[in-house]
């Protein structure tokens, strides 16, 4: 370790949606790396340790090193000449960068979608139909005496959720921590999260909706068909016990994961859970919250919502925003072959999208901004290496409970930020659009 050391107090980890802002980072300024991350979980330690300055070109065009200026020009050319350009990702960058991306989409009359569509997109749809009884994680810490985790594995995906906000932590009205709380897990399998639970309900795969609907009926005092026990795999006595606990707690929370949104039923599953939380407010205080993934996916939802009126899957081809999941969401626009260019920001659909979508990305010009090489950067026409938010770049991110948090970067990067690159692309698009906007408007009028 060199002697040129800096300590950053109250830094923020942007790996997952917990966005823990109590990091104490020890930074080796000569080696451009973080040597110690106090308070970080296993994922946070890897996040801080592995984001070092790599020896990669700042930009590639067709796999060949290029200047950032040339790459910006090529990216802008691709975007303004495309007829159905899509923008996707955005959940692992700052709100400031997201805002620039939205401005580009507006200028080119494109389509914008975020990783929410393949995460809690169905929850977003359910919010519109059912609403959300919501809270901050601070309220959970200080008040919640019954916590139900449904279809998620926070122990592995959000390791500090239990210790910092929800289970073992002591709060103002929860002086004894976990001893004052009852923890319930509902899942199709036992996970590393399960041991934290006082009660584990193992539901049959694909039967979450049936279990939630039965619980809603029982909360309202209705009789349910005993067959629901066979259908869901959960004994009626266990359901009745849970209902009594939910109605009689002081402050109940339903945290839910993608076990609900990624399975058959999708937004109906999420809607059933949100409706259950609403029902329970007849008896006590009950809230529900999706446990969000990437560091600033909640910021992407917020920013896209306050900018366009909709959270994801938004199209500007008519000059004003339209929202239609299934039509303007990225898996659909790629798999159907609608998109003829793609701007991918801080995301790797080339690694985890359906095969048909990945195959289409190989056929169209793709522009990628990422801190590391990925399957998506490998198929890109234009690839930018960018600085890491929260480590090299400041800005704003939203925690999973919609609380905005300011970042405190640790050390400088030789690479530009996502915001810098996107602002340059936006300005170049503005330059070019004088020639193409008229034809675009004529196309829309035709």
């Amino acid at each position, binding site marked *: 370790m060199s002697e040129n050391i800096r300590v950053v107090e109250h830094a923020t980890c942007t790996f997952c949606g917990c966005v823990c802002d109590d990091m104490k980072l020890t930074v080796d300024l000569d080696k451009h790396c973080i040597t110690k991350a106090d308070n970080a979980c296993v994922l946070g330690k890897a996040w801080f340790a*592995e984001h070092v300055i790599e020896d990669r070109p700042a930009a590639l065009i067709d796999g060949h090193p290029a200047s950032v200026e040339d790459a910006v020009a090529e990216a802008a050319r691709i975007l303004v000449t495309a007829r159905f350009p899509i923008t996707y990702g955005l959940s692992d960058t700052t709100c400031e960068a997201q805002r620039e991306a939205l401005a580009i989409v507006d200028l080119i009359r494109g389509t914008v979608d975020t990783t929410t569509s393949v995460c809690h997109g169905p929850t977003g749809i359910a919010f519109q139909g059912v609403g959300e009884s919501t809270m901050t994680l601070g309220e959970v810490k200080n008040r919640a005496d019954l916590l139900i985790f449904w279809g998620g594995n926070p122990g592995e995906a959000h390791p500090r959720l239990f210790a910092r906000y929800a289970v073992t932590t002591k709060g103002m009205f929860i002086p004894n921590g976990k001893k004052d709380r009852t923890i319930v897990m509902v899942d199709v399998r036992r996970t590393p999260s399960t041991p934290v639970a006082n009660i584990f309900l193992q539901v049959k795969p694909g039967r979450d909706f049936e279990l939630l609907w039965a619980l809603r009926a029982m909360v309202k005092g209705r009789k349910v068909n005993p067959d629901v026990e066979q259908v869901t795999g959960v004994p009626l006595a266990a359901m009745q016990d849970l209902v009594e606990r939910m109605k009689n707690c002081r402050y109940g929370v339903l945290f839910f994961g993608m076990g609900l949104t*990624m399975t058959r039923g*999708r937004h109906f599953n999420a809607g059933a859970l949100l409706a259950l939380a609403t029902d329970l407010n007849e008896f006590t205080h009950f809230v529900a919250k999706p446990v969000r993934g990437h560091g600033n996916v909640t910021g992407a939802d917020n920013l896209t919502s306050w900018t366009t009126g909709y959270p994801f899957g938004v199209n500007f081809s008519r000059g004003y925003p339209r929202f239609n999941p299934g039509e303007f969401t990225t898996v*659909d626009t790629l798999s159907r072959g609608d998109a003829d260019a793609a701007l991918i920001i801080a995301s790797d659909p080339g690694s985890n999208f359906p095969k048909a979508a990945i195959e289409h990305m190989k056929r169209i010009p793709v522009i990628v901004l990422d801190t590391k090489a990925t*399957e998506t950067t490998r198929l890109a026409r234009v690839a930018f290496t960018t600085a890491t938010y929260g480590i090299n770049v400041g800005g704003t991110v939203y925690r999973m409970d919609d609380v905005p948090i300011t970042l405190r970067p640790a050390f400088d990067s030789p690479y530009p930020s996502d915001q810098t690159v996107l602002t340059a692309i936006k300005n170049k698009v503005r330059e070019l659009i004088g020639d193409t906007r008229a034809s675009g408007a004529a196309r829309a009028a035709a």
Partner: protein
Amino acid sequence: MAETMILIAGRTSKQGTSLNAGKLKDEYRDVTSTVEMNTDDMSRLSLKDGDPIRLSTSIGETMVRCKGRKPVDLPAGMLFIAYGPPSSQLLGSDTAGTGMPPSKHYEVTVEKVAAGP
């Protein structure tokens, strides 16, 4: 002999730590190409930890290695894999008008294959 099982894709700690090192690196590839299987199912199929198996759907197929989980942790007929390029090869693109492909709880065909040289 081929069997039909239910595949669940999800996140794991190892996947989370290895993706920070790099998604093109061996550790991430190894984590995302390992499928967990109930040990009773493995015994019935004459599989042991590390054996290669082929998973296939109507969309595509992928080769992965299996790893046993106790029946109390993973029910019979169920598989778990960390998200990644192998699982995406099996994934359908019909989002049913939601934007979300059916990423968990889909049926896959499981076949034992001969180990490589």
